[in-house]
């Protein structure tokens, strides 16, 4: 099942297999992400969703298979070329992964400041313009990540990911640990960020309300492989036991 908003393939994963020692985590994973599309990856904790994301961004190497980003084969690619490809991606990690030793504004503009050689003043203004979109107060800019709440840290991490308007956004559980209002704000932001730049996104989540709001396509990872895929509407009607369990937990009908 492929819902093509546009024919251009942004990310293509083929026959991806990954094991740690003797334990197989992912087996024969196949999917495509098209331009302008948001893909939600769902699955139980420990099902390998984050491992899949780490394979896509090159932090882990698959045992087998192919990963193409913008038609560039990432597996076994020369490091310097891989870094250039990754510069066009905006990534948030599960726990934020903000740099403790840098103020929040420095975290937000980290990539863009180095890339475009911005002055501190211009960089700070850029950071301010981004955090306003995320409903954050300008006072947090001069604070360190440890001085703000977990929810704010999450939003600063998202600000860092969308800074510079990357065409591909990858979110690892962007709304986990956030209150419903902030979670909803993040969902809107993901949607608008994808729409504004005409980009594509992959979001890993357990939040079915979030899936229904942001995703064009959903895949479920279970028992090391993609056990179900479809649109959010198909997901709501699905007979898959695990999908039903997920839906029961958050009743996303209330949110769409």
């Amino acid at each position, binding site marked *: 099942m492929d819902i093509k908003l546009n024919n251009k393939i942004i990310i293509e994963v083929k026959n991806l297999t990954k094991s740690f020692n003797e334990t197989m985590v992912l087996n024969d994973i196949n999917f495509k992400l098209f331009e302008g599309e948001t893909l939600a990856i769902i699955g139980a904790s420990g099902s390998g969703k984050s491992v899949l994301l*780490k394979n896509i*961004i*090159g*932090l882990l190497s698959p045992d087998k298979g192919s990963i193409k980003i913008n038609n560039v084969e990432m597996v076994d690619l020369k490091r310097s070329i891989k*870094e250039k490809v*990754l*510069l066009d*991606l905006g*990534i948030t*990690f*599960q*726990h934020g*992964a*903000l*740099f*403790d*030793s840098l103020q929040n504004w420095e975290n937000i503009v*980290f*990539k863009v400041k*180095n*890339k475009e050689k911005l002055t501190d003043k211009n960089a700070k203004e850029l950071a301010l313009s981004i955090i306003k979109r995320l409903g954050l107060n300008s006072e947090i800019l001069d604070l360190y990540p440890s001085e703000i709440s977990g929810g704010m840290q999450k939003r600063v991490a998202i600000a*860092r990911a969308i800074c510079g308007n990357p065409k591909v956004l990858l979110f690892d559980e962007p709304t986990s640990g956030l209150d419903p209002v902030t979670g909803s704000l993040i969902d809107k932001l993901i949607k608008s960020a994808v729409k504004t730049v005409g980009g594509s996104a992959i979001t890993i989540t357990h939040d079915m309300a979030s899936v229904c709001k942001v995703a064009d396509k959903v895949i479920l990872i279970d028992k090391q492989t993609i056990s179900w895929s479809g649109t959010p509407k198909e997901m709501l009607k699905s007979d898959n036991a695990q999908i039903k369990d997920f839906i029961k937990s958050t009743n996303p009908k209330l949110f769409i």
Partner: protein
Amino acid sequence: MNLINSIFKICGTTGRKFLKFLSNVGHFFIFFITAIFWIFRPPWYFKKIFYQIIDIGYFSLPVVGLTTFFSGMVLALQTYNGFSELNNETTVARVVLTSITRELGPVLTGLMVAGRIGAKMAAEIATMRVTEQIDALGTLGTRPMQYLIAPKIIASLICIPVLVLLGNTIGILGGYVIAIFKLEFNPSIYLYATVEYLQWIDIIQGTVKAVLFGLIISMVSCYFGFNATKGAEGVGYATTASVVISSVMILTSTYIITALFFG
């Protein structure tokens, strides 16, 4: 049969541990070469190097100064007591000078810095590793070895020799204070003896040790931090291992260098 099984079991365990040790040595060697490569490759993060110099050099000075000052004092006192027949200005001055510049200054500075800075480096990098900050760095167009590790190594190589030279001076001053104010030696004669016995070879040897200790402390600490796993426990392990292994390597290498220079 049981005995043979036990022997096989012991051999197996020993062999596995030995292979693990060899594998760790190999990993460290690769890390060492990679780090050296990144030290020489631009761009250099001068702001980060400057902050590290302040942290390693300036903030370590009090602890290094205190340690070497009191060591110089103890040395002067013990030399006076131990060589009671020869308790003149020149003997005490010579023993204090030689011991401090050749051994105590570099070794005590190295051990103090390993405890203060090595632990800090390992804990900082290990925390960054287990909280995915190092992974994030890589995805933001910055190479972790160049951004995190190289500034720490460069700053250590600059600061530790300077700290050793300052520590030596403070240690000799400690000996002077005891010699003049407690043992009531003649200040002029004591100072003259100190300067007369000061040899370039001692300073060079101390500096060589300092550079090597700088390399040992920064490389070992960064290696354990960079390869940390298993969350908070991993951070603790990295910190302990970096201090213990740095200290053992400092004490081992000081003997080798002394043997090379004076053996």
